[in-house]
């Protein structure tokens, strides 16, 4: 077990290296001359040349990548072309709202969607199942910003239950922090809930037909133990897998959600950086998101071994 976990952790190194190579190449595959890009529209050819020199852009690609990787490993992501601030500092200022939003959405989505899928499978073919699945199709097909604006209109503008927009740091109190995040998390969570609920239902349907579920009933166990212990634990692997893959959905959705609810997070930072072609910032953000994705999926892979004793590597 320990050996497996160690090997699995080590195996993320080449993955992150590939991600790094990709992120670094962004600057080179983008149309135009990086030096000219960085220098801006008003720069003279001499300025561009000077920047090329000073950034080392005239040296071989691999050398540049090596240096960049070395700096990145030392938590130095360069400086923003636009603000001249260190990228790590800019990300640091924006990371809390985004991580808060993602974590809250994740927890909320799992807590809602898994029981939904379990109940749908248990009540398969009934109106309960059909309503849940209808919601899932709906959640899947309506874009995040539509749900976001709808929720904001009803629950913030009309009912005034939650703030319309903005963000309050967690250090200002749990209440304000949550109340600012409820609507964004709901909007962002819809797709995710739909996805997880569907997979949970499918996986549970398969498990509920198994002989050991009948054994569990024959022992006199109640419906809840049968469903949530005996069946769900067996159905967990696909569910957990889709939760991990869905992190990518969350990251993409967070960018949109942040602009709908005016949350000063990484999403906004990313959008601004892209509009300004602030490459070091773009690179930093992409790297961070990739890292989160890889990390979550690493945790999930490790979780498998606890969920299913038959999994041995």
């Amino acid at each position: 077990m320990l050996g497996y976990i160690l090997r699995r952790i080590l195996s993320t190194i080449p993955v992150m290296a590939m991600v790094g190579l990709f992120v670094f190449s962004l600057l080179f595959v983008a149309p135009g001359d990086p030096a000219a890009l960085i220098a801006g529209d008003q720069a003279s050819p001499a300025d561009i040349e000077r920047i090329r020199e000073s950034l080392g852009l005239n040296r071989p690609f691999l050398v540049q990548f090596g240096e960049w990787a070395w700096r990145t490993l030392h938590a130095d992501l360069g400086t923003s072309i636009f603000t001249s601030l260190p990228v790590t500092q800019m990300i640091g200022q924006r990371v809390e709202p985004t991580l808060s939003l993602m974590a809250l959405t994740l927890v909320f989505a799992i807590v809602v969607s898994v029981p939904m899928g379990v109940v749908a499978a248990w009540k398969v073919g009934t109106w309960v199942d059909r309503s849940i699945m209808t919601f899932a199709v709906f959640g899947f097909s309506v874009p995040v910003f539509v749900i976001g604006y709808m929720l904001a209109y009803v629950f913030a503008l009309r009912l005034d239950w939650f703030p319309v927009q903005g963000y309050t740091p967690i250090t200002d109190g749990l209440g304000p922090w949550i109340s600012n995040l409820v609507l964004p998390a709901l909007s962002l969570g819809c797709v995710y809930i739909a996805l997880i609920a569907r997979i949970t239902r499918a996986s549970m349907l398969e498990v509920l037909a198994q002989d050991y579920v009948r054994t569990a009933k024959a022992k006199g166990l109640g419906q809840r133990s049968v469903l949530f212990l005996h069946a769900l634990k067996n159905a967990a692997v696909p569910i957990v897998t889709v939760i991990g893959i869905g992190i990518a959905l969350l990251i993409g959705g967070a960018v949109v959600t942040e602009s709908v609810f005016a949350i000063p997070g990484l999403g906004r930072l990313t959008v601004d950086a892209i509009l300004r072609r602030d490459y070091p910032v773009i690179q930093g953000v992409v790297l961070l998101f990739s890292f989160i994705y890889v990390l979550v999926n690493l945790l999930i892979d490790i979780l498998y071994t606890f969920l299913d004793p038959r999994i041995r590597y």
Partner: protein
Amino acid sequence: MALLEVENLQVHFRTPVGVNRAVDGVSFHVEEGETLAIVGESGCGKSVTSMSMLRLIPEPPGKIAGQVRFAGRDLLKLSDKEMRAIRGNDISMIFQEPMTSLNPVLTVGRQIGETLRLHQGLDAAAAEAKAVEMLTLVGIPAPERRVKEYPHQLSGGMRQRVMIAIALACNPKLLIADEPTTALDVTIQAQILDLMRDLKHRVGAAIVLITHDLGVVAEVAERVMVMYAGRKVEEAPVRELFSNPRHPYTQGLLGAVPKLGSSLSGESTRLAEIPGQVPSLTKPIQGCVFAGRCAIATDVCRTWAPALEMKAPRHVAACHYALKEAVAA
């Protein structure tokens, strides 16, 4: 009053091609401590009969009717909660499929202990201790190690032993064993049967034993019920049935079986093959259910269904032409 009295049990399944009358009006009883064997070809409704006693038939598509009186209470009328208090406690069941009947992601100890915690209120430690004890009882070596293992680490025979341990953990009054050995290989079959015979004397539970193996019936059961196409066609004490089978179907089943008392080798004691097809359960059957395969069937058989009739003391059969002893009238 018998421990278990099943009366006019009907289990019907709604299917796309019509209603499948898997069990159609079966009655029988089991006395305390008695072993009743149910035999019959594949698909005749043995598993459905046994599972409907614990109400384990999925409803829908299934529908159970009739009465299943256990210690005087009709199980079919109990609430779900009352029924759960009986399952695994007063009545337990061993299934036909040892390889898949245990939960693959829970330890063996947990799966045995669960029943004890549920019905006897033991705490985790006491339940595990009792689980070790149960594993010892069913003859699993190194039980302290095995309780911590998962089903995939055990062989088929061991898994069936674990199932037996689970079933016996709460000292049930009735044990339903649905072909407990069919899926195992011959030597393991003999071991499991030895175990069951041994436990029968020690535990004293009544047993409903479903099997294809007439050798097993001869050695373990006191009475035998023969099922065909969802109905009971004959029932008699085991010696009486083997020496004087009255129903042509039973006679056919016994055709290739060696004399009573032959060893439990498991090779030649299987039910004999009877030529012909079992009638479709989704269509109403006119006359005798066995008429299509019966060598001595007449127009009478094809028109009127024979009723179950006492043919000898404690011996009933459903056949117009079955011999009837004068004393039985």
